[in-house]
């Protein structure tokens, strides 16, 4: 039950891209075509879950134990960077087919603040291990969802008449704003869902 609320919250209400402002660079960068957007989305879901899995352990079994939580940022990013590179190498060797479709997005993911953001968020929110994993997974789905929707809209720009000044990024940002407004409509959904579920 709890996880349904968590899912609704992570995917719709507090969508990582549109409400939490995380991961906006790839949001703008790889959203020109739906298929690349979908590829990026998949890669993010995977890396986000996996990275949170590792950083959660690192945090509670190393940082907390040694009382060096202040090193969180540097440790997490290092872990994520190494992890992403590891995944890239692994895919290249073991699953070349997957590497061809997802691999090109992996280097981009290191600097995707959504990954680090979620890893840090689950710590500040004091989530349990399972909660953290679920939260990361659903946030990834939220990311992918927003990205694909956005890419779908941006593809239409190709054939629409846009004033020169608004071309490319400008209109993309305004569109993102409108999508964000649509997602704004989900506000409160999690609360009501929660109260329904509890009853």
């Amino acid at each position, binding site marked *: 039950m709890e996880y349904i609320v968590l899912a609704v919250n992570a995917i719709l209400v507090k969508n990582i891209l549109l409400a939490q402002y995380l991961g906006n660079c790839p949001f703008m960068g790889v959203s020109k075509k739906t298929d690349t957007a979908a590829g990026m989305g998949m890669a993010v879901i995977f890396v986000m879950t996996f990275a949170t899995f590792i950083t959660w352990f690192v945090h509670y079994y190393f940082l907390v134990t040694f009382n060096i939580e202040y*090193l969180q940022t540097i440790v997490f990013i*290092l*872990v994520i*960077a*190494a992890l992403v*590179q*590891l995944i890239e190498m692994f895919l290249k*060797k073991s699953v070349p087919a997957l590497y061809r479709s997802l691999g090109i997005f992996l280097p981009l993911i290191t600097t995707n603040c959504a990954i680090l953001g979620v890893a840090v968020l689950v710590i500040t929110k004091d989530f349990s291990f399972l909660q953290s994993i679920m939260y990361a997974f659903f946030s990834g789905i939220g990311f992918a969802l927003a990205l694909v929707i956005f890419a779908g809209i941006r593809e239409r720009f*190709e054939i*629409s008449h846009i004033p020169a000044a608004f071309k490319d990024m400008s209109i993309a940002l305004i569109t993102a704003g409108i999508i964000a407004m649509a997602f704004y409509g989900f506000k409160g959904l999690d609360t009501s869902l929660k109260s329904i579920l509890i009853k």
Partner: protein
Amino acid sequence: MLIATIFLMGLGLVASLILVVASKVFYVWEDPRIEEVSDVLLGANCGGCGYAGCAAAAEAVVQKKASPDVCVAGGFEIAKAVAEVMGMTVEEKEPEFSKPGCTYGFQDADLKYEYDGLYDCRAAVLLYNGSKICEIGCLGLATCVKACPFNALSMGKNNLPVVDNDKCTGCGICEEICPKGIITLSSATIRLMSDQKLSECTAPCQRHCPAEIDIPRYICEIRAGDYEGALRTIREKNPFPLICGWICPAPCEEECRRNLLDEPVAINGLKKFVADLERKNGEYKLPYLPPVSGKKISVIGGGIEGLTASYFLRRLGHDVTIIESTEKLGGILRYVISENRLPKEVLDWEIKGILSLGIKHRTGITAGRDISFKSMMEEGENLVLVTSGGWDSRQIMNNTMTSDSLIPKSNLLLNFLMSEESDRPSVKKKRVVIVGEGNSAVKAADICLDNVASKVCLIYPFSREEAIERNLDISIKKNLEIIFSSEISELSGIGNDLKQISIRDEYGDITEIGIDYLLIDSGRIPEMLFDLDKDSGIWRSVEVLKVLGKENSGGIFALKNIGRPTDLERVVVAVGIGRKLARGLHLHSTGEDIAPEEKVITDESQVANVFRIPNRQALINYKEKYDPSEIFTLEMSKDQAERCLSCGLICYKKGHQVCKLM
């Protein structure tokens, strides 16, 4: 404090260890050059090369599937760097730029309907081929602008794409995406290699110029005061603007739409004006010249056609030597045309200019007499282009009765018939082939039979019925074979002997005939290209004029075609043929198929036209007729250029539009 330091040290160590181990465990062998090449490439992932991004292109280069100059966007610098990685060399290529080929945007052109659909040319073209009446016009919906990865394109005020040549890398994406083919890659080389096509926006004047000069463009350039540019435009199709300015009968002016209003623009006069201007300045402007990398080519005959072919061959990167039997280059223009029609100094100036491109010439050497065909073949690195002319040029040389022409064991019928019995080559026990369409051919056949030729083969371009109609003697004689409705498609030989001749009949079937001696019924020796196969020593003719794109022009002795190119009546026609020869030769020497381009405009083509020009503007009443031999003044040239209607296919200047340089 210690803990933190040690922890981070440990983390750094572990992370790097894992990465090192992983890179060992998950090691996939990749050609290290792939990475090196991708480092060198631009990394814009524009796809202009046709590969999926720079990395894919790098892979293709390393696998030798693509050449080092694969990166069209990067230009020569990048290509050089890539070649360095690969240990290869590249030649510098002339930069190519996008060139939009439409003059009138949709607000100036006549429309079929108002388009208000998806803002994309690819969508608009689906509805009755776009909103313009002109089927080849630009739809102005900026699809190319959106597609350009380098932001080199923008829409101009008149809703036509404008290219920023500084940003354009010649990647060709716009060319690919434009549904109308308006925007194409262009460079002087591409332009001089191509003929006018139905899919291009051509003005009537330009369509009727045998040399296919882009007349509207040069007039536009003159109007803008860019005289050098105008001359450059002319020389993309005609190396003799000054000579043509003097003696060209100007078929373009006959077709000028201005005729529908008052009288034509002095197109030829304008051409002469810019050429005169250059001569007055005394400095011959050289075009872009690629480094000589092509084959060495001998061109026989230094007349207008040979000079034109040589000029363009040099511009295509070939090493050309002209062999001329008289003491000076110029051919008929020098020896036949009178001084008052064409002053010799004009001729000399223009020939000198052409030679200054780096074209070698040897005068006073008669091919076939002073230098054997075999040695010419070997000297010219296996390629010999014949533009020797014929009967008329021999008159110039005052030695009309040579027994052999430069093509071994062959002669013009006229020479053969007119020479003394003793001068005639012996045809005893020889297989003679006579190509002809008149009774003179029959007469020559009789002479050969009398001289105990072992076999005489008469090739008629007509059918048997036509031959009877024309009262030709087709009676059956011993050792005589008459072949109807055929033409020669190939001629081959070894050293200074003929070997075989291929005959193509009306169905395109080819028969091969052994041959010892050839007689050609024509005033001239047709333009021919001979290519030597070094291993076997066999040389054979190449159908170099296939590029003409006309029906029946396939054979080297395409006699069926009346007004065939080999009988040149006007200098401008010779210029046009000269350029086409150069193109065909270039294609042949680079191993490409010599075929006419698609949709080339020919005399028979149906091109949209206008029949009445409503008098929409106050026209300058042009009374005074200029004498073309006079030198235009600057004002006169401006006046004339202003009179141009800047015609497109069906659009033309209405009101006060100003033409723009594309």
